[in-house]
């Protein structure tokens, strides 16, 4: 029932295609993130699910019920969709107390006073705001306002919750804390969550699956681990985590050839659909280069101590590689070292 299904959804503003032909099914009880750079259409997608935007084309289903259909001219307004929603700006009403903010959805359905009190108190305790009901929003910190917004979204016990970058206005430490609290709430209450963020770490930590978006298109819909280890294309690989791209040529089923301007290196790599002799781009994550031994020789250009790891920029002929090494062994700037390239991926040359 609380499955949310988008089928070929498209939305265009004037000349801007905000969302293009998006299809995704969010399963009951699943935590799905919409991840992508700013302006890629995440908020628009969320707002179409909430009923604040009408899709130009395509359909949106809640369970078996069509709630939006461009073709059939069906459109259920937001107040009938029974969703919980948390806005990026919190949207806590400044003229109402915390209690009244959270009670509002209950009062709309004319719940009796005793029940309202009980339900609101429960919601406030879920977000750890017990006893702050009589405060007004301007007397709360950003983090507390955030919790009020969360309580208001939860109070009707919706089966589906929508959150639009709810943590982006909080400081780093609080953000970290809230990630776990939101995730924890979602698990305890068993609700379906659609979560918009531009922060890949947030998406990685919280989601069951992530939709990576760019320019209105869904580039990949997968579990976080798959997205990191098997990115569908160069954009996804580049957007998630750090990665080096190096031009190369396919020489046989297991090997590609790198030219670094001074010499050539053979690197082992599964070539997938590529043909022998074709040009390609080799993608290497910084942690997949091992330092100290190997067939390739490089020079340390920069070494930056990051606490748990050392971040190196290594010149391999004219190619610069970003590599992360254990903090146990420290190489100095200017030092020459041997290195080996481990796991890597191949992408077509122009794609980006």
């Amino acid at each position, binding site marked *: 029932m609380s499955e949310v299904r988008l089928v070929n959804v498209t939305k265009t503003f004037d000349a801007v295609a905000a969302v293009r032909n998006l299809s995704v099914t969010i399963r009951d009880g699943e935590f799905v993130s919409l991840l992508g750079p700013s302006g890629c259409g995440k908020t628009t997608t969320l707002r179409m699910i*909430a*009923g*604040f935007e*009408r899709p130009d084309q395509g359909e949106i289903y809640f369970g078996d019920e069509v709630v939006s259909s461009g073709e059939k*001219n*069906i*459109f*259920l*307004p*937001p*107040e*009938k*969709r*029974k*969703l*919980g*929603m948390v*806005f*990026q*700006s919190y*949207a*806590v*009403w*400044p*003229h109402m107390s915390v209690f009244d903010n959270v009670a*509002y*959805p209950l009062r*709309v*359905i004319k719940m009796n006073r005793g029940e309202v009190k009980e339900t609101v108190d429960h919601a406030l305790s879920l977000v750890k705001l017990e006893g702050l009901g009589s405060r007004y929003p301007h007397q709360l910190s950003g983090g507390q306002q955030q919790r009020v*917004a969360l309580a*208001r*979204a939860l109070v*009707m016990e919706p089966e589906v919750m*929508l959150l639009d970058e709810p943590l982006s206005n909080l400081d780093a430490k609080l953000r970290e804390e809230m990630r776990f609290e939101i995730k924890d709430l979602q698990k305890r209450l068993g609700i379906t969550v659609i979560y918009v963020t531009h922060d890949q770490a947030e998406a990685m930590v919280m989601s069951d699956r992530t939709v990576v978006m760019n320019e209105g298109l869904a580039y990949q819909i997968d579990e976080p681990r798959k997205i990191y280890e098997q990115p569908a294309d160069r954009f996804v690989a580049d957007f998630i985590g750090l990665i080096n791209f190096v031009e190369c040529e396919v020489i046989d089923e297991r090997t590609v050839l790198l030219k670094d301007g001074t010499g050539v290196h053979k690197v082992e790599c599964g070539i997938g659909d590529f043909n022998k002799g074709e040009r390609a781009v080799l993608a290497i994550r910084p942690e997949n280069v091992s330092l100290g031994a190997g067939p390739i020789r490089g020079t340390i250009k920069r070494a930056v101590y990051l606490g748990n790891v050392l971040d190196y920029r290594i010149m391999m002929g004219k190619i610069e590689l970003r590599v992360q090494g254990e903090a146990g062994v420290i190489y100095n700037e200017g030092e020459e070292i041997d290195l080996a390239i481990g796991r890597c991926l191949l992408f077509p040359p122009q794609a980006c």
Partner: protein
Amino acid sequence: MRLPRREEISVSYLVLGAAILVLVILVAWPMLLLFVNTVIVDSEFTTRLWREVFTRRQNYTALRNTLYIGVLVTLGSTVIGSFFAWLVGRTDLPFKGALKALLMLPFLMPPFIGAIAWETLLSPRSGYFNKAFMSLFHTTTPLLDVFSTWGIVMVESIYFYPFVFITVAGALERMDPTLEEAARTAGAGMLKVMKDVTLPLVSPSIMAGALLAFAASISNFGIPLFLGMEKGFFVLTTRIFIYIKTQSASFEGLQLGATLSVFLLLASGTAIILEGRLLGGRKYAILAGKSMRPHIVELGRWKPVFLALCLVFLFVAVLAPIGSIYLVSLLKVYGQPVRWENLTLNNYYHELFKDSMIRGALRNSLVLSVAAATIVMIVGSVIAYVLVKTRIKGRKVVEFFVMLPYSIPGTVVAIAMLLAWTGKYGPNLYGTLWLILAAYCAHFMALGVKSAAASLEQVHTSLEEAARVSGANWLKTFGDIVAPLIKPGLVAGWLLVFIPAFRELTTSVLLVSTHTMTIGVAIYNRLEDGYFLLATAMSGIILLLVFVGNLVITRVTR
């Protein structure tokens, strides 16, 4: 399945349609008639009116006077306004808050009451400043004759410099101080930073303020009426007034007035459009969103000098006229020295309780201003909602018609109303309050829309959307969320319309009849009939009301 969102869209189109209808009746139709009537006489196309207007020497003179005064007032206002804006905005002058509030006072003063006030100070024989000057220097030539071109220029500059002061002070406040700090770290001294960074960045705002002052000067009627007519000095607005009054009841006179007013319209319209361009184009480039600590210039040993300058200006230009008008209103006979035995409250008593004409005028002005403020705020909020919160087509057209009368001088609005609603093209409203009400609504609509739009823009859309996902429909959201949040803004907007409408002169002077006298026109009549003391008493009452009203506005919007 039902389609409530569709219904909602058609509701907003319906509302928009009603708003457009109101605007057509109040603005578009009268303005169309204004233009048509300059070229059509007795249903035939003719250029006779234009030729007649052009061949009259007095019209040339009036046009030349208007521009001459306008340019001088613009210069005066710009110098005074920019200087004080910088002084209270960017220096370490003490008591800046209080000084700023006092420097804004002339903005609240109705210009025609300002003219009366300055008459009490600078009339050639009996003005207090002139008398003091002549006895101090044993001379018979006055310091400045208020009934002269320079008198008019000075009085207008004092009442119109706040346009420059407000725009420049605002720009200085919002300017990102790091821009100036960057120049300081690059090695530029305080004066050099002001010349190379501050001044170029605020110059669009100075220009914009100057254009507003220019538009205010050329559309002003009260000051040249009270200070210029005495010596036969005419500007466009007073010239149009003469056309209507001397040839009253003749449609021909009205048409000649309309033809002349097209000039006025073009001049002030151009100024207002240029002003919009200036601020629209560059505003966002230099302004940072948050208010930050401004870059403060230390005056050092010049501080007492600047402070003294500021206080002298405030005393002479701002406080003395207000004090003087109250002083004179308490005299038994105009010209008497101010001594205890010469003082009386009789002028006030007479104006408030004795005279049925004044009582009628007070009642009319009250009814008109309450009705106009209420209508304008209701229609204005609806229009503002459509403009700010919806994306429906056609809202740009509405915006144009709303903002149109904002740039139209009151004199022109009155003539358009006379053309449209005195029987020739429909109902004859002459002699009724409806005619004046229609004019007020047209004239103040933009003010209403602007203040409603300003409060609506404060209500972030997500606040409404949060109510929608909570299960409230559009109407309930409006009632529970939008209405309470914009209420203070609407109350302030209501007063912003009510106050100037209550003491209105320019428009109503052309529209009143014996039974529809307004308080502004009553004061004019008092002066015409030679009851100067009664006019000052009435002005004192109006000023009190204006000041109290503005206190309420600052209270509710804080």
